[in-house]
């Protein structure tokens, strides 16, 4: 991602890799992985949502972590290159966070017959989404430039620090979100493959969004 010159294309060749991986992930989740069986012996097909839900959540956390690291770099080095990474990653993080929330909600309807529960992990993810949505609003309303980069970096840093606190403060109620219990080997393969595919897609998107940011910078 070292292209400092004005980018010509939006997506690099890695988007093809991401596309193939995502289609294989679809197969892994729907065909390769065996049906989950409930304690009473009935198949629980809705568990297949997990193969897209968990990777979405993973990529969301990864993306927000990248934004945090890039923001620290902006504050330390005053580098606009890192600011482009932070902006790009935050936006993609919101996309994947939204996907994790929506797929989780559908899973919740199937498993708990509830669209939403104020469980610590759900609540924290929701707040995480709100923090980064505020980040994007802040970036939109600040004329882009060095000052916008500083403001964004400050907000992303404070926001990232507050997330673990949110988790602690809402954890007082008992959680109902499933923990990663022992999965069958084939299920684990499928899940790990999907996580890999989503991560490749994240980097393909990150690079494209980064190039868009560089292009916008070059125009100014």
């Amino acid at each position, binding site marked *: 991602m070292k292209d400092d010159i004005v980018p010509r294309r939006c997506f690099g060749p890695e988007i093809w890799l991401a596309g193939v991986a995502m289609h294989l992930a679809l197969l892994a989740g729907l065909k390769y992985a065996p049906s989950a069986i409930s304690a009473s012996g009935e198949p629980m097909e809705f568990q297949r949502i997990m193969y897209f839900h968990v990777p979405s959540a993973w990529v969301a956390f990864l993306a927000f972590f990248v934004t945090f690291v890039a923001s620290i770099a902006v504050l330390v080095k005053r580098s606009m290159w890192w600011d482009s990474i932070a902006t790009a990653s935050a936006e993609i993080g919101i996309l994947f966070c939204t996907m994790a929330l929506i797929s989780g909600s559908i899973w919740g309807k199937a498993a708990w017959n509830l669209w939403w529960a104020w469980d610590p992990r759900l609540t924290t993810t929701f707040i995480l989404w709100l923090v980064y949505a505020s980040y994007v609003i*802040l970036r939109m309303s*600040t004329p882009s430039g060095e000052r916008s980069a*500083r403001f964004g970096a400050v*907000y992303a840093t*404070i926001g990232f620090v507050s997330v673990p*606190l949110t988790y602690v403060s809402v954890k007082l109620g008992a959680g109902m979100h499933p923990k990663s219990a022992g999965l069958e080997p084939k299920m684990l393969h499928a899940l790990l493959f999907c996580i890999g595919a989503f991560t490749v897609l994240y980097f393909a998107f990150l690079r494209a969004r980064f190039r868009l940011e560089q292009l916008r910078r070059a125009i100014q």
Partner: protein
Amino acid sequence: MRWLSAVLCLAAKDVRHELRTREALASMAVFSLLTIVLFHFGFSDLGQEATVFAPGALWVTFTFASMIGLARSFSVEEINGCLRGLLLCPHDRSVIFAGKMLGSIASVGAVSTVALVLFVVLFNLPIFSMLWLVWIVMLLGVVGVTAVGTVFSAMTIGTRMRQTLLPVLVLPIILPLVVFGMQTTAKIINSATTGSAPVAEIAGGIVGMLLFDVILTTAGIMTFEHVVVE
């Protein structure tokens, strides 16, 4: 100490300014009163027990009222280029942060205290014996909210949306503190009405809020200098 006297000087300037104009104090106080009226019609008029909704209502009132005060904290400095003058002072940036934060604590704390008393009177909350404890919990909340709010207030005067943006930025960040404050207040009110005293739980809540205040204030001091660089 030079640092402390500079901080106190700046805070005293803000307090004096506020006492002369009374702009923020008046709007915060009237806003709190209006919220109390709305909570009456929204909850107690519909048959809700005041002791049940009081913790939430109190914190909602004081959180949103403090937004008004914090929004003014730096917008007053913008007029006549006062902020530039402040930045030219031969002091560390942390002086401006601490002074501004202290000034906001004074005005927001004063209004919150009045709002708390009005709340207790207007909703007939039977918590007079525990009022001081609720007040302490609320002040702990004020410290955290103003720490975050001071940084973002300085930030929002540099954005297109100006102060409209402040609550959007501040509220997600202070959420853990507000949640903790509500829970602790609920426990205190509950113990005042039932007579039981879960001392350990209340003390734990207060310690937790203190911890949040320390973290948020540290984060504020560390990041503030990056906000006001000109």
